[in-house]
């Protein structure tokens, strides 16, 4: 008899790319479900449109590249990208924001670079930034929370109207995000504390009752999902800790120096896309360093940039920009920061021959 000759190892841990994507998606599910409940039908419409167009872009790109459709369409990578993008969009944004974003993320963000695993930048964040720069109005209209079943929640038909029909009354039910509000108030000469008064409740921010992106509102649920990913060893603790740690550190120092101008660390940690970014965006392995030390540096760099952009930049939120900038720095980090190899020093030279008289 004859069997195909294949190289060792002959056993496998039975892990798969789809399994990895599925685990990340599961970790996102609590925050996503909460966001969908909080913002109702229009949010669900936007999510579905984004996913559909991302899949369309994936299929087209694979076709053009002459790659097999099935294994890549079903590996969950395009869906996860679209999901993450939708999570970071204003929940009542019109359908074409999701459509353009989904297509852009997959086609320009991923396939132009050579497909899965080849992209330099995080596709979801690339699309989000492209949308923000191109359509600043639509991308900064934050719907008031209107949980499904509540009086102010739009019905199914209203939802369709909001997403697909350009709801005329949308202005009356939207407002600025807390970070945007702080920025505006500061520019008007008010202090941070005054801006926060009556607009920001820490518990509310942790649970997620604030205006914000679709699934960025609940810092607590995102943290939970992130810890699940760390426990399942899908991501390391280095990037989240580096990112959250440096945001807390820099904002803490600034707040101590001038509490009137700089919001305290908790405001930073609980608002905007920070939790989503720290656990789900910056940790995307494709655009982050390979070594653990490199990952920590990457996270810390993201955090420093987030603080800098939020504080001095033109935009109230900086997670997407920060991640993209650090994505660009990843090849550099990878070049200089490598793990120490057994039997070698960190610089790659062999260890000195040390002789012990006897082992312990």
């Amino acid at each position, binding site marked *: *008899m*004859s*069997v*195909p*000759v*294949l*190289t*060792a*190892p*002959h*056993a*496998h*841990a039975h*892990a*798969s*790319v789809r*399994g*990895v994507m599925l685990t990340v998606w599961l970790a996102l599910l609590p925050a996503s479900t909460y966001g969908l409940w909080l913002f109702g039908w229009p949010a669900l419409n936007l999510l579905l449109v984004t996913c559909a167009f991302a899949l369309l872009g994936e299929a087209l790109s694979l076709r053009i590249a002459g790659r097999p459709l099935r*294994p*890549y369409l079903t*590996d969950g*990578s395009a869906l996860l990208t679209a999901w993450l993008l939708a999570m970071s969009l204003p929940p009542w944004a019109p359908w074409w924001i999701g459509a353009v974003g989904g297509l852009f993320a997959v086609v320009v963000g991923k396939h132009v670079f050579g*497909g*899965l*695993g*080849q992209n330099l930048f995080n596709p979801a964040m690339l699309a989000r930034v492209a949308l923000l720069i191109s359509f600043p109005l639509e991308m900064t209209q934050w719907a008031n929370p209107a949980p499904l079943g509540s009086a102010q929640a739009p019905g199914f038909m209203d939802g369709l109207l909001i997403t697909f029909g350009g709801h005329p009354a949308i202005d009356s039910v939207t407002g600025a995000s807390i970070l945007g509000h702080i920025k505006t108030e500061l520019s008007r000469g008010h202090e941070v504390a005054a801006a926060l008064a009556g607009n920001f409740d820490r518990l509310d921010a942790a649970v997620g009752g604030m205006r914000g992106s679709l699934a960025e509102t609940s810092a607590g649920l995102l943290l939970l999902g992130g810890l699940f990913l760390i426990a399942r*060893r*899908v991501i*390391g603790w280095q990037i989240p800790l580096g990112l959250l740690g440096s945001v807390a550190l820099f904002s803490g120092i600034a707040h101590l120096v001038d509490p009137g101008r700089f919001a305290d660390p908790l405001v930073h940690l609980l608002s905007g896309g920070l939790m989503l970014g720290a656990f789900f965006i910056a940790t995307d*392995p*494709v655009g*982050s360093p*390979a*070594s653990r030390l490199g990952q920590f540096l990457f996270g810390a760099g993201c955090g420093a940039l987030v603080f800098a952009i939020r504080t001095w930049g033109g935009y109230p939120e900086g997670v997407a920009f920060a991640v993209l900038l650090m994505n660009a720095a990843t090849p550099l980090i*990878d070049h200089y920061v*490598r*793990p*120490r*190899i*057994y*039997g*070698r020093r960190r610089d*790659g030279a*062999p*260890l*000195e*021959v*040390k*002789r*012990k*008289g*006897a*082992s*312990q």
Partner: protein
Amino acid sequence: MRLFRFKGGVHPDEHKGPTSDLAVRPLPLPVRLHVPMQQHIGVPAKPSVKIGQRVLKGQVIGEPDVGLSVAVHAPTSGTVLAVDDVTAPHPSGLSTLAVVIEPDGEERWCDVVVPIDPFQIEPEVIAGKVGAAGIVGMGGAAFPSAVKLNLGLSKPIHTLVINGAECEPYLTADDRLMRERADGVIDGIRIMQHALGAGTAHVAIEDNKPAAQKAMRAAAEPYPAIRIVGVPTRYPMGSEKQMIQTVTGLEVPAGQLSAAVGVLVHNVATAYAVHQAIRFGRPLVSRIVTVSGGAIAAPANLEVPFGTRVQDLIDHCGGYREEPARLVLGGPMMGVALAHTDIPVVKGSNGVLALTADEIANARPPHACIRCGQCSNVCPLGLLPLEMAARIRAGKSEAAADFGLADCIGCGSCAYVCPAHIPLTQYFNFAKGELAAKREAKRKGEYTRQLAQARRERLEREQREKKEKMAARKRAAAQKKAAETQQEAGQ
């Protein structure tokens, strides 16, 4: 005793249950033995028997050649039928020279050397006897053991580490050896300790083998210099560098042998072979082989004479329960996939596995690398397999070497966990081969250049010498002529 942790590692399903409680049974002599002349790392032995010649068990049938080489002995008594090529137990499936013996069934040993007290003789003599007995590392690497024992003469060895980890799934050959022949193993360890002048011997046994630990502890009881150390069950615990690190905390510098830090590692089966060779004068002619895997009807641990075909082992185990998806010689993590079963068992073969489709890595086409980093998390050397593979894929083996390719021990942990099913080990083996070929080509080119240079210099020298000779002759002729003219003028 304090243990140290090596980086990374994996926990593959053990699958040791089917054979760990099966006592070693001798395999009945097969109809023919195809004994390869190369069962070790290095230069093949030279056949020293003629076709038709009668041989006795333990008689030398292959003399060690010059260089790194060891003798090969007749695994049983019988007649030499042929000296011919057989398929080698190697991934290439190339052929190798073998002596074919038809057993006479009498199992008659040749005259053995009178036993002597090994502790009264010089270390060199012990190493010499171990070499003459054809003993090689039996954990799979098959490096001639005498060479390693001789290292004790040139470098002080303070610790002898004995590898009883048996970290490969399915295999229980070493487990059974330690449980059934602990006294022999301990005696072999004492002899090697004496040969090396090693003060301490640590026998590292993974914690999933409590019975072996107990048996070895009992046998080592009278010898305080030998310690039985329970080590965590983690692949690749049995790899030399990882085992040294676990037991002693020492790290072997890159490019050095473990002797550089005063430590040597030998396998438990090697220790037992040393015991047999020194105490009874019996050369290495058989070993314990685990026959297992989901496709084997009746898994077993068998004492197998070298040169027995894999098919004979499978037949003895009742054949297949179902059609195997893959046949492996060795363990599933580092073993060699066999193209067919007409392949002889050799000194380094610790297992024959017939694996079902469920048991093997499903041979689906590799997906794109998502840089998840699992490979570098599990790499016991701290390498970045994903970065090396990306470069090798792009045809840049040199760039991969810059990431430490040469330090890769080929344990396969990276490929085992890769969610994209990328055959990383194959990439690395390919690139290592390519780099070796390039080095060789460079060396040859350099040699050719030297030869050309030497030829040019020789030609130039000859030309010069010719010219000088010619000039000298001309001068001589001119002088002669002048002299003649003078003479003529004088007359």
